[in-house]
């Protein structure tokens, strides 16, 4: 594929509705739903792409990290299909895939690059080095960025998932209304528990909240998180200039983050933020990652297990 990957279909079956009543992901519910929906989702992906199994050349699947019950199902269904159809398999890192998703926007994506993966489970700053290796240079000391949004949303009485809810409410608010502390952690690490606590105090000290006050709080809270994330990317860039920066993960859908990243980083490096649907968890990014891994090390020679603590490579 000299011209880079071409996406034929990307079927997403979201479980948000299943989990919303619980205010977070329930592993047991997630795994049960996986077992029944996986085969139909695969069928639909083939149908949408107008592809038959005979035209498929390989299978890619997430090896980790993630919820073990869910990973097990994906890894085993995928490898069983591959074995039955005599196809090669590439097991990929879900985290690296959030970075490699950028290849779907930027076919010539090459190392070295700086990647920020921000989601409900992760806030990782990585370097994809010229030699192909991936090094994590910053991670969160407490909550992930997405968790910070979820917890902030709960404090503000907004529904799960919190990120989109805060994003929406913040649009009507003033990001300078409340000066939240900027999260400080050593080196290039992140920390969001302080700003979450500050939000809690701000809400508690008011006996009631007008709609405008809530919007102002949401906007200021969002601004603090976005600023903290970009500040670390800028610091990493200052330590070692890098031609390309990639943002990925569900939090990279956040409109303020996308806009501020463009303003602050756009002139200093080639900034790639995949389209919102390629930032949230999706299968296309796993395919993009598999193409890169295939070049790097080829298919996996023997059956492998799910690995809930799998890193970037």
């Amino acid at each position, binding site marked *: 594929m000299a011209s880079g990957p071409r996406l034929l279909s990307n079927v997403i079956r979201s479980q948000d509705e299943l989990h919303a009543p619980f205010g977070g992901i329930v592993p047991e519910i997630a*795994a*049960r739903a996986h*077992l*029944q*929906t*996986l*085969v*139909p989702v*695969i069928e639909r992906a083939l149908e949408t792409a107008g592809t038959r*199994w005979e035209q498929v050349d390989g299978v890619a699947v997430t090896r980790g990290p993630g919820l*073990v*019950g869910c990973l*097990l*199902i*994906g*890894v*085993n*269904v*995928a*490898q*069983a*299909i591959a*074995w*039955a*159809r*005599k196809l090669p398999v590439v097991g990929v890192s879900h985290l690296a895939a959030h970075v490699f998703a950028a290849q779907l926007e930027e076919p010539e994506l090459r190392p070295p690059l700086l990647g920020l993966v921000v989601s409900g489970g992760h806030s990782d700053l990585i370097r994809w080095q010229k030699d192909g290796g991936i090094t994590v240079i910053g991670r969160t000391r407490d909550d992930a960025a997405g968790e910070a949004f979820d917890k902030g949303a709960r404090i503000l009485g907004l529904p799960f998932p919190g990120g989109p809810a805060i994003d929406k409410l913040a649009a009507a608010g003033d990001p300078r209304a409340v000066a939240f502390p900027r999260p400080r952690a050593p080196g290039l690490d992140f920390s969001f528990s302080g700003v979450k606590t500050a939000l809690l105090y701000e809400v508690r000290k008011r006996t009631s909240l007008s709609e405008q006050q809530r919007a102002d709080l949401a906007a200021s809270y969002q601004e603090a998180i976005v600023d903290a994330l970009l500040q670390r990317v800028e610091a990493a860039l200052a330590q070692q200039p890098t031609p390309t920066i990639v943002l990925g993960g569900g939090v990279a859908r956040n409109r303020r983050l996308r806009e501020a990243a463009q303003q602050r980083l756009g002139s200093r490096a080639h900034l790639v933020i995949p389209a919102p649907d390629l930032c949230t968890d999706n299968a296309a990014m796993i395919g993009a990652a598999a193409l890169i891994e295939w070049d790097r090390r080829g298919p996996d020679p*023997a*059956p*492998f*297990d799910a690995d809930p603590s799998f890193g970037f490579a």
Partner: protein
Amino acid sequence: MRLAIDTSGADQAMVVLDGRRLLAADDWVRRRDDPPVLARIVALVNRGGGGPDDVDGVAAARGPGSFTGLRVGLSLAAGLAYARHVPLYLIDSLPILARRAIGEPATVALRDAGRAEVYAWREGEPVRRMPTDELAAWLPSSARVMAEPAGMLATWSSGHAHLEIPLAGRRPLSAALLDFAIWTFESQKPLRYDEVQALYVQPAAAEERRRKAP
């Protein structure tokens, strides 16, 4: 060639068969650092003298039992059957366990469910989950009990230890699985690939009451 797998318990097994004839079997005890179950399937099918193209039916145990084990077995079975467009069957784990008895099947099968509970099955009834201290009232006095792990009936219900079939009276899980798989392939209706679900047995009524109590 048809494949049947049971990864629902501590003892796990798989068989490949041609009609009623056993081609190859594998029995193992689940361990943390086990090789992937798919590697065992690949080796077993090879030993049975075939390859992936020869698999024309798949059956997998649906529990109750270990969530992890069940997910592995069911997703492998679903993936295989779907990819080959061959019939897929789910089979109940405790009746298989009962068939580990040499001679007549056990009339009662019990499997540890953790938290002082057991999955309990007796001939002609659906599986239930009950606190071990309710076993005494539920066990028929003439029961022949197959327990997993072996020897546990003495711990679960000390007065009934004599009802448990001793180790010497049980055969490998693969032998029981073979019997049950033959019956299933010959007489049962296959499932759709999107109907694959483990058997989740709800907590016993008594446990439910206890949980709701203030």
